[in-house]
C-alpha cells in the first residue's frame, strides 16, 4: 500500500515537472503580458517612467474614437466578403481534392504553399500585380477595355485585400474540410442513393450537416484571422483609401509605436479581443450543431 502511494506521488511529481515547463512558459509569455495589458489599459504611460493610474479615461476615449470604430466596421465589412468566399472556395477545393485520382499530395501542398508564404513578399507581389498599369489591368484593358481600381477605390481596395487573404487560406481551410469529408462513411451516401436522393440532396442533407464541425472550425478561424489582419493592408494600402482598409491591428500598431501611446493601444486590444470573442460565441451559438452518426 505504502509503495503504491509512493509510486503515485513520484508519478505526480514527474507529471508536475513536465507540465511545469509549459506553466512557466505561460506565466512568462502569456500571464505577465496579460496582467501588464490590464495595468496599461487603466494607466497613462509612454514607455518611460512608471505608469500613472488614470481610471477609465482610455476606455472613454476609445468609445468616442471614430477612427477605432471605423477600423471595427472595416473588419465587419471584410468578414462580409471573406467568410462566404473562403468557405465556398475551400469547400470547392476539398470536393475537388476528393475527386482527384492522382497527385492529391501535390495539389494539397501547392495550395498550402500560399499559406506558408511570407506575408511581406506576397503583399509586394500583389501590389505590383494589381497596380494601375500592372499585368492584370493591362490584360483586362486589352480584353475588355476596362481597368479596375484594385487598391485605389475604397470598396475595391478592401475586396482586393479579401482576394489576397482568401488565396492564402483557401488551401489550409480546404484541407480541414477535406479531412471532414473523409470522415463521412461511404455507407451513408450509398443508403441515400438507394432511397433515391439526388446529388444535391446528398450534399444538402448529408455532406453539409456532417461537415458542421469543420465549418464551425473554419468560421472560428476566419473570425480570429479577420480581427488579426495586419500585413496585407499595412504593406499594400497603408489603411487607405479613406481609411477603408484600416484594421484594428494596424491602428494598435501605429498608436503604440508611432503615436507613442501604448496604454491606449492596450485598451484597444482588450476591446477588440472582447468583440472577437463575442462574435465567435454568437457564431457558434447560431451555427454549431451536435453531429453524430450513431
Amino acid at each position, binding site marked *: 500500500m505504502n509503495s503504491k502511494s509512493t509510486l503515485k506521488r513520484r508519478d505526480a511529481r514527474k507529471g508536475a515537472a513536465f507540465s511545469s515547463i509549459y506553466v512557466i512558459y505561460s506565466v512568462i509569455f502569456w500571464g505577465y503580458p496579460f496582467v501588464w495589458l490590464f495595468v496599461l489599459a487603466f494607466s497613462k504611460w509612454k514607455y*518611460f517612467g512608471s505608469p500613472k493610474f488614470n481610471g477609465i479615461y482610455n476606455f472613454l476615449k476609445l468609445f468616442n474614437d471614430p477612427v477605432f470604430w471605423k477600423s471595427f466596421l472595416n473588419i465587419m465589412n471584410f468578414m462580409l466578403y471573406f467568410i462566404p468566399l473562403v468557405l465556398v472556395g475551400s469547400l470547392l477545393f476539398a470536393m475537388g481534392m476528393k475527386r482527384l485520382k492522382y497527385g492529391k499530395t501535390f495539389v494539397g501542398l501547392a495550395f498550402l504553399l500560399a499559406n506558408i508564404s511570407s506575408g511581406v513578399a506576397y503583399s509586394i507581389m500583389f501590389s505590383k500585380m494589381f497596380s494601375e498599369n500592372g499585368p492584370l489591368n493591362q490584360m483586362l484593358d486589352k480584353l475588355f477595355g476596362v481597368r479596375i481600381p484594385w487598391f485605389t477605390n475604397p470598396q475595391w481596395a478592401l475586396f482586393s485585400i479579401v482576394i489576397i487573404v482568401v488565396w492564402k487560406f483557401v488551401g489550409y481551410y480546404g484541407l480541414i474540410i477535406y479531412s471532414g469529408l473523409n470522415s463521412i462513411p461511404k455507407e451513408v451516401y450509398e443508403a441515400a442513393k438507394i432511397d433515391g436522393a439526388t446529388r444535391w440532396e446528398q450534399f444538402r442533407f448529408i455532406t453539409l450537416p456532417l461537415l458542421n464541425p469543420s465549418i464551425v472550425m473554419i468560421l472560428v478561424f476566419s473570425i480570429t484571422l479577420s480581427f488579426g489582419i495586419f500585413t496585407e493592408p499595412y504593406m499594400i494600402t497603408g489603411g487607405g*483609401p*479613406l481609411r477603408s482598409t484600416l484594421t484594428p491591428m494596424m491602428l494598435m500598431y501605429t498608436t503604440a509605436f*508611432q503615436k507613442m501611446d501604448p496604454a491606449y493601444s492596450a485598451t484597444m486590444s482588450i476591446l477588440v479581443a472582447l468583440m472577437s470573442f463575442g462574435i465567435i460565441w454568437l457564431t457558434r451559438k447560431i451555427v454549431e450543431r451536435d453531429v453524430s452518426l450513431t
Partner: protein
Amino acid sequence: MKNKFLVLFIIILTTISFSKTKIVFWTAPNPNQEAFWKEMVSRYNSQNGDMEIEWSTIPAAGSSEEAILTAVASGRAPDVCTNIFSGFSAQLSEIGALYEMSSLPGFGDLVKNRKMENIMKSWEYDGKSYIIPLYSNSVLMWWRKDILKELGWDNPPRTYSDIYKLSEQISTKDSDKFSIRVIQGRNWNDRWFDYITYFYAAGQGESYVDLDRYRANISGTTGKEVAKFIETMFKNKWTAVDLGDAAFYKGYIVGSLKGPWEIAYAKNQFPDVYNNIVLSPAPVPDNYPADKPVYTFADSKGLVIFETSKHKKEAWEFVKWIFNQKDFDSMWLEYTQMPPAREDLLENPLFENFFKENPYAAEYAKFVKYAIPPAQTTKTVDIQDEMTVSLIEPMMYGTKTSDDAIKDAAKKINKLLW
C-alpha cells in the same frame, strides 16, 4: 584565509580600475552606414584606451522607432543612437528620454565648426537641442529631360501654371500618360514628400503648424494655393491616384519629387534614363519671385544621447570626437551619398571632388540650407495622418473641394494640437 581574501580584493580592484567605460552605440541598419560606422568606431577604439564603444545596428523590428521604444521601455536603451527623425526626437524629448545637449560644454563650438547654426534652429524642441542632425536629404523635382525636349520645353516647369500647361500638352497627346506624380502615397510619412514639400516651397519655408498657438497653419494663402494645385491636377485627370511601378522611368510621368537616395537606384536600374534627368526645386505658385530661393523639405536624421545612459559625459565626449574628425563628413558622403547636415557643402573644399563627380548630388547639396525638417511636434504622425485622410484623399477622390478639405483638416489638426 586572510591571504586569499587579500588576493581576491586586489583582483577585483585591478579589474575595476583597468576596466574600460563601455558606451553602447546604435546606428541605422543600412549597409552603407554600417560600413561607415564600423570604420569610425574602430578608429575611436584604437585611439581611446579608457573608453570602448560597443557598436551595433538598431535591433531588427518593424521599424527603428519600434526597436528604440521597446529598448526604452525595458531599460535597455543605448547610450548614443543615430537614425532618429525630428518628430521622433520631439516625442522622446517630451517624455524626458533624451539628454539635453545644448547646455553641454563644447556644444556651441561643435555647431559652429560644423557650419550648422541655422540648421540647428529648426531642430530645437522647446528652445533646446536634444539631437544633432547627421544628414539632410533635400527633396527635389526630377524631370525627364528627353520627354520635356520632345514637348518643346528647354527648362523644366517652374510654376503651377507651367505644370498645368505641360499637363494639357501630355493629356491631349496620350490620355494614359501624365505630367507629374502629385501625391506619393497614403502613408503618413508620404506627406513629407508631397504636401509638406509643396507647402515649404510655396511659403518660403513657412511651417504648416503654428507651434506657438497650437494651430494648423494650412488655412492661409500658402495652404490654399497648394491645395488648389493638388485639386486642379486631380480634377483635370492630369495625374492619377495610382501611377504604377517605376512610372517615371517607364515614361508614364515626366516629373516627380524625389530624394537623393534615388540617384544610385536610377544609375543602376535605369542607366539610359539616368542620363536624361534634370533636377529642379518643387513647383511654386505663379506669383513666386523667380530670383528667390525655393525652400524644400529635409528628410534628415540625427544622433541623440539617452537620458538613461550611465555615462552621459563620456557619451558626449564620444559625440564631440566624432564631429571633430576632419574627414567625418567627407567620409560620410563617400560612404552613404547623403549630404551631411551642414551649410557649407558647396563652398568647403573637402567635398569639392565628390560633387564634381556627382552632379546630381551637387544639385541636392545646393538646397541643404533651404531644406527644413518636419515641424518639431510630438503629434507628427497624427497630424500627417489627418492631412492624408481629411485633406489629400478628399481632393484625390473628388469628394470635397479644396476649401472644404482645408477647413475640415485644419479643424481636426487643431483638435489634435490642443
